[in-house]
C-alpha cells in the first residue's frame, strides 16, 4: 500500500526535476528547507528524525537536491520528506512538506476492531512494518 502524506499526496511520486522546482519555489520565498526521515509510517507519527540541520541561507536548489539524494541513499528503507519553514511573523509554520523517498516495499496497515463494553467497537490502525524493531523495518 503506497503511503501518501502532505503536499502532492494525490500525485504520483515527483521526479527529481519536479522536486527541484518545488524546492526552488520554497527558496525563492526564503523558506529554509529541512529533510526528515522515519520508518514509522503511522499517520499520527509527527516525530521524524532530522537528516542534518535545516539548511539556512541556501539560494539554489542544486545544493538541496544533493542533500536530498544523500538522505535517500543513506536511508533507503525509510520515508524521506522535505519541509520548508516559513519563519515570517504571523505564519511561523511549515509552509511545504512532501515525501521524496519511500521504502521499496510498503506492507500497509491492518484495521483492528476491539469489542468493548456494551458491544462498543473501537478501531485502531496497525502498520505491519512496525512489527519489527526500529531500523529493521522495510527490509
Amino acid at each position, binding site marked *: 500500500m503506497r503511503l501518501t502524506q502532505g503536499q502532492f499526496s494525490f500525485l504520483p511520486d515527483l521526479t527529481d526535476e519536479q522536486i527541484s522546482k518545488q524546492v526552488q519555489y520554497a527558496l525563492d520565498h526564503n523558506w529554509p528547507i529541512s529533510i526528515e526521515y522515519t520508518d514509522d509510517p503511522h499517520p499520527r507519527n509527527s516525530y521524524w528524525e532530522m537528516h542534518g540541520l535545516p*539548511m539556512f*541561507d*541556501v*539560494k*539554489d*536548489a*542544486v*545544493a*538541496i537536491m*544533493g*542533500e536530498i539524494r544523500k538522505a535517500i541513499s543513506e536511508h533507503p528503507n525509510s520515508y524521506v520528506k522535505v519541509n520548508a519553514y516559513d519563519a515570517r511573523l504571523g505564519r511561523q509554520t511549515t509552509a511545504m512538506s512532501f515525501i521524496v523517498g519511500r521504502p521499496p516495499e510498503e506492507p500497509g496497515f491492518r484495521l483492528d476492531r476491539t469489542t468493548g463494553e456494551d458491544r462498543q467497537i473501537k478501531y485502531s490502525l496497525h502498520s505491519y512494518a512496525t512489527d519489527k524493531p526500529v531500523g529493521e523495518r522495510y527490509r
Partner: protein
Amino acid sequence: MENAPGGAAATEAPAVLDLDAAYRDSQVGDVLAKLDRELVGLAPVKNRIREIAHLLLIDKLRKQVGLAAEPPPLHMSFTGRPGTGKTTVAMRMAEILHKLGYVRKGQLVTATRDDLVGQYIGHTAPKTKEVLKRAMGGVLFIDEAYYLYKPENERDYGGEAIEILLQVMENQREDLVVIFAGYKDRMDTFFSSNPGLSSRVANHIDFPDYSAVELISIADLMLGKLNYVLTPAAEVALAEYVELRMQQPQFSNARSIRNAIDRARLRQATRLFERGGTVTAEDLKTIDESDIRRSRVFTSGTA
C-alpha cells in the same frame, strides 16, 4: 538554453544574430559602466573583466546557433595588495555572470579559511560543504586563499578543504564559480604547490596598486558620497598626506584612504565641538586643513 528565444530561430533561418541587441538585453553594459563609475583607475582589471564579459556573451550566442562547445572555464583568481578593490570587482563579476546566465542566482558568498577548515578530524568536510551549499547558484569568493594550504603543518586540514573545493569546481561547473583572492606572491606559491587547483583556475587577474592621483580621486569620491567638501587648503594637505601615507608600511590603498577620511571626520567633529557656539550647514560639511594636518602621518612619520 534549449528554450532560449534564439534557439528556435537558429534552427530555421540562417542565423543572423544582433550582437548589439544581445549586449543590450543582457544589461552587462550597465554593470560594466557601474564598475567604471565606482572604481577609480584599475584599467587592466576593467579591461580583463570587459574581455571576459565579451567572451561569455559571444559564447552564449554561439550556443544559440548550435556551435556549442564546453562552457568556458570561469573560476578566477584575483591577486593584489589589500584595498585594491578585489571584493568590489568580485561583486560586479557575480552580477555579470548572473546577467549572462552563467550562474543562476548571482549571490556572492565570501569565505575565509575560518569558514572552510575545521578544527578536528571530520570537521572540515561538513564545514566546507555548508559554505558550498550557500554559494550554489552564485559566486564563492575565498579571501586570503593561500591560508588554506599550510605546507609547514602536514596535519593541517586545509588540504581536505581544497580537495572538496576541487571536486565541486570540476563537477559542478554550471552551479558555482569560485574566485580566489590574495596577495600576488603568496597566491603564486599557493597555486604552484596545488597544481590541480591552478589548472582549474582559468582567469588570473592582477590588481595593481593605486597611484597617488588615483587615491586622491578615490578620496573625493568617498567624500562626495558622505556629503563632505574639502577646502582648497585641505585638498593640498590631503595630497601631501597621501604621498606620505603611501610610503608607510601597512599601506592598504583605498582602505587606508577610507580610514584617513573617517579620522578626518572625527577631528572635524571635535573641532566644531571645541569651538562651541552655533554651527552652519556649511561648517558641518566642510573639512578644513587642520582636520587633515593633525594626522600622525605628518608629525611622527609612522602610522
